[in-house]
C-alpha cells in the first residue's frame, strides 16, 4: 500500500515539474530550446547584446546572425567562423560558458557596449573581448558585429627542408646485453622556490643538452626537516614537453597549501625519453613587450614561419629579476590556429606583486598539429 502511494506521488510530482518547466523555463533552457525568451525585441542596448550572447552560448548561430544589424557585410558562416575558427583549434571544440556586458557609451540612436566572453576549452578558460556598436532602428536595438574575418592563406607551395627524428628501440627478443638507445641528456639549469598565498611554487629551467629531441617533464618532492616527504608534484602542462637539441624550457610546479618554512630540502627529478619529433613548424615571437602593472602582462604576436598549420600554440614566459634569477613562469594557450605568416596575438598575465621585480623575460612556444606527424 505504501509503495503504491509512493509511486503515485512520484508520478504526480514529475508531471507537475514538467508543466512548471514548460510554462516558466529557465533562461538557458529556453535558449537551448530556441524559445521565445531570447527572440523578442530588445528594449536596451545591453539587452540586445545579452540576447546575442545567449544565442551564441546556445550555439544558435542562425538566430544570433539574424539579429545583427550589419549582417549584409558578412555571411552566417563567416560569423560562425569568427567565433569558432575556420581551422581546427581550441575554439573549435569550445563552448561559451559565460559573458559580461558593460555599457561604455549610449545615445538615443546608438551605443557602445563591451562584450566579454569566457570560452571553455579543453585546456581551461579562454577570454575574448569585443566592443560592440549597437544601433536603434525601427524602435529596436540591434548589434553591429565587429567581424574579424579569418585570414585566408593564398594557395601556394612552401618548400620545407623537413627534418625529423624517428626512434627504433630494442625489442623483447634482443639479448639482455644488447644495448638500447640512450635516453636524451637533460639538465635543470635553474630552480627557485616562491611562497604564494595559495601555496609553494617551484620554478626553473631545463635544457636538452643532447643532439636528439627529448620528451621532458620535471617532478619535485618536498622533504621536511626530518627528511620525510611532504608531497610530490609534477610540472603537468606548465612546461614545453618537447625539446629540440639545446632548447630550453621553463617549468613551474605547484604545491597547494604548503609553506616554504616547513620545507628543508627539495628533490628534483628531471625525466627524459626519446620521441619521434619534427623540427617544424618554426614560430617567431614578435613584438614581445612587458606591460607594467596594473594588468601587468607579457604581450606579443606569434608568426608561423613554416608551411604547416599549428592548430594549438602554448606560449610559456620566463620572467627574471635584475640578477637574472627566475621570479615567475606564466603561460597562455592561444585559441586560434597559427596559419603561415599570419600573426596571432598572445597575452600572458603576470601577478601584480611580482611585476615590479621583473626586468627581463624569455618566451618559448610549443605547438601541436592535428592529424600531422607530431
Amino acid at each position, binding site marked *: 500500500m505504501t509503495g503504491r502511494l509512493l509511486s503515485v506521488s512520484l508520478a504526480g510530482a514529475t508531471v507537475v515539474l514538467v508543466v512548471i518547466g514548460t510554462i516558466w523555463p529557465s533562461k538557458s533552457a529556453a535558449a537551448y530550446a530556441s524559445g521565445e525568451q531570447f527572440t523578442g525585441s530588445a528594449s536596451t542596448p545591453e539587452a540586445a547584446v545579452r540576447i546575442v550572447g545567449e544565442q551564441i552560448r546556445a550555439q544558435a548561430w542562425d538566430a544570433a546572425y539574424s539579429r545583427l544589424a550589419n549582417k549584409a557585410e558578412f555571411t552566417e558562416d563567416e560569423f560562425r567562423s569568427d567565433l569558432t575558427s575556420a581551422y581546427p583549434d581550441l575554439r573549435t571544440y569550445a563552448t561559451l560558458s559565460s559573458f559580461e556586458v558593460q555599457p561604455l557609451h549610449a545615445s538615443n540612436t546608438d551605443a557602445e557596449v563591451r562584450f566579454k566572453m569566457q570560452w571553455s576549452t579543453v585546456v581551461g578558460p579562454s577570454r575574448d573581448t569585443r566592443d560592440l556598436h549597437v544601433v536603434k532602428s525601427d524602435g529596436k536595438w540591434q548589434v553591429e558585429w565587429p567581424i574579424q574575418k579569418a585570414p585566408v592563406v593564398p594557395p601556394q607551395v612552401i618548400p620545407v*627542408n623537413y*627534418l625529423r*627524428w624517428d626512434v627504433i628501440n630494442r625489442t623483447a627478443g634482443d*639479448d*639482455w*646485453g644488447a*644495448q*638500447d*638507445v*640512450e635516453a636524451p641528456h637533460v639538465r635543470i*639549469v635553474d630552480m627557485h622556490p616562491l611562497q604564494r598565498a595559495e601555496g609553494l611554487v617551484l620554478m626553473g629551467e631545463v*635544457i636538452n*643538452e*643532447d*643532439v*636528439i*629531441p627529448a620528451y621532458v617533464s620535471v617532478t619535485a618532492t618536498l622533504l621536511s626537516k626530518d627528511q620525510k616527504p611532504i608531497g610530490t608534484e609534477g610540472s603537468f602542462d606548465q612546461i614545453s614537453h618537447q625539446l*629540440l*637539441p*639545446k*632548447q*630550453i624550457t621553463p617549468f613551474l610546479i605547484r604545491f597547494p597549501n604548503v609553506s616554504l618554512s616547513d620545507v628543508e630540502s627539495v628533490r628534483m627529478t628531471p625525466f627524459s625519453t626519446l620521441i619521434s619529433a619534427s*623540427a*617544424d613548424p*618554426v*614560430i*617567431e*615571437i*614578435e*613584438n*614581445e*613587450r*612587458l606591460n607594467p602593472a596594473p594588468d601587468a602582462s607579457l604581450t*606579443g604576436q606569434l608568426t608561423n*614561419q613554416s608551411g604547416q598549420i599549428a592548430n594549438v600554440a602554448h606560449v610559456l614566459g620566463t620572467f627574471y629579476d635584475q640578477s637574472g634569477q627566475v621570479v615567475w613562469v606564466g603561460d597562455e594557450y592561444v585559441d586560434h590556429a597559427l596559419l603561415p605568416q599570419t600573426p596571432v596575438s598572445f597575452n600572458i598575465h603576470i601577478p601584480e606583486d611580482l611585476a615590479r621585480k621583473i626586468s627581463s*623575460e*624569455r*618566451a*618559448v*612556444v610549443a605547438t601541436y598539429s592535428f592529424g600531422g606527424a607530431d
Partner: protein
Amino acid sequence: MKVGVPFLVACLASGVACRSQDTNLHLPKRIEAGSAFSVLCEGTGKGTLYIVGPSEFIKREIQLGEATSFPAGALFNAGRYSVWLDSAGSSAAGSIDVVPVSKASDLTFIAKPSRLQVALRDGITGTAYVFDAYGNLITEQMEVSFELSNPTAGTQIRRVQTRNGVAWTQLDSTPREGKDQFVARIGDIFSKRVVFQVPGEPCSLKMSATPSGGKIQLVTEPVRDCSGNVVPDGTVVTFTELNRDTKSTVDVPLKKGVAMVEMPANRGATISVASGVVLGNQIRWEQ
C-alpha cells in the same frame, strides 16, 4: 627403500654428501659440462640412482656392480650435483662438480653509453661476460680484447683478463664525431656494438645579416664544436632582436649546418644569436 627416502631427504636438507656403510659409489669428482661420464655402484641387485643439480634432475634404474654410462650432454649446467643411490637395504651418496667448458662459445657485451660527446676521457665503458656452448659463465681466467674503431681516428685496443668470468674496460671518446664500432673479442668469438660519438657544444656562433625586402635575413655560419665537428641538424639556435622596449625571438633548428631566419627590419635594433648556453655575436641594424 625404507632406509633410502629418509636418507635422501636428510642429505638434501643437510646439503652434504652422505655415504652408507655397506655400499660404495664411484663417481667422477669433476667433469666438463656436456661431457659423457659413468657411475659405478658396488654391490649386487638393482637400485635407483638420483642425480640432482642446478636445473637438472636425472633418475635411473641401475644394476649394482656394473658401470652405468651417461651420454654427452646429460649434465650441461655448471655447478655441484648431488648423487644418491637407493637400493634394497642400503644407500649411498656423493657429488659431481660440473665445470664450464674451457672454450668460449659466446660473449655478452654491454657497452655504455650508446651516445656521447666527442673527446671525453674514460667516457665509454665496455663489460664482457664469457660463456661456454651451454651458457655457463667461464670463470677460468681468459683474455678479452676490446677494440674501439673510428673511420677517421684509428682504433683503440685494450686487452683485459677476465675475473670470475667478467672483463671490463674504459676508453676515451675520440675527437671526431661518427658511429664508432666497439668490439669485444675472445678468440674467434666477438660481439659488436655501436657507440655514436656526437659533437659537443657549439664553439663559435657567428651570424650575418642582409636586407630582404622589408625584413632582415639572418644566417649563421656553419656551426661547429670546439673540435671542429659540425653541430647536427635540429640543434636550436635562438635569434633575438631588441628594438627599444620590444623584443622578437625565434628558435630556429639548424638545417644543412646553418640556421636561417627573417626578422623585422627595425633601424637601431640589436640582434643577438645563441644556442643553449653559448652566446654568439651581436649585430646592430642601422639601415
